[in-house]
């Protein structure tokens, strides 16, 4: 193993350690992709100097950041896939439910308020009729009492 090979091996070992939290399949795929990248980039740069390899590894970046990127990429499908497939029905179903129940709540309140208003209206109307009832009767006799004099002359 040459010194540049050791650099690469050490780098990949760091990625592997950082990637221990990833599912095995993802981890192996990531390491395979990076190994392939390094191999091709080394073959293309022609020169096999340590500086070349260091440049390749520096461009790849910090193993921890790469694994952090893998974390977000494993999270994304978990978020989007449920939204598209299994959890999708409950998710969109929930928001429509809430407005419906809220509407029902408001409708209930409105009906209750209307019932109270109607009740008081009836009560007030009944009270007015009770008040007017006796009042009308005296007026009517008064009118009839006044009418004869106006008709008289």
């Amino acid at each position, binding site marked *: 193993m040459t010194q540049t090979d050791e650099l690469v091996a050490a780098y990949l070992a760091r*990625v592997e350690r950082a990637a221990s939290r990833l599912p095995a399949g993802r981890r192996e795929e990531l390491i395979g992709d990076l190994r392939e*990248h390094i191999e091709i980039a080394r073959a*293309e740069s022609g020169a096999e100097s340590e500086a070349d390899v260091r440049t390749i590894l520096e461009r790849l970046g910090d193993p921890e950041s790469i694994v952090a*990127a893998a974390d977000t990429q494993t999270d994304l499908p978990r978020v989007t896939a449920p939204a598209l497939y299994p959890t999708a029905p409950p998710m969109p179903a929930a928001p429509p439910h809430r407005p419906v129940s809220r509407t029902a709540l408001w409708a209930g309140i409105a009906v209750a308020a209307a019932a109270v208003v109607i009740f008081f209206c009836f009560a007030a109307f009944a009270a007015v009729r009770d008040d007017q009832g006796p009042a009308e009767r005296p007026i009517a006799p008064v009118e009839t009492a006044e009418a004869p004099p106006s008709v008289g002359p």
Partner: protein
Amino acid sequence: MGVTDEAALTTALRRGTIEYCVLALLDKRELYGVELVHQLSNGLGMTTSEGTMYPLLSRLRRNGRIATTWREAPAGPPRRYYTLTADGEAALTHFRTEWVTFRSGVDRILGTES
């Protein structure tokens, strides 16, 4: 603005867009990993985080937006080429429309219309 804030801002801006940059590059022609990653990192100023693109490529492959195919190279080891699938092409077309609308809205609000 601190370095960390700036990095977080750049990361946030890239988050929703970089995968469509991948699709757009592959729409022009198929590319193998090193080429694709170099074009992206040079185009987006990510020359020290090329490795972070492989998890993205992996997801795009899982989601069927891109595919890979091995080809012999004139020199050196065979290259694994990334290609755009029909799904990827549809996603790219859709994003282009969304992007223009989104960008103009942001530009109008920010006062950065050209």
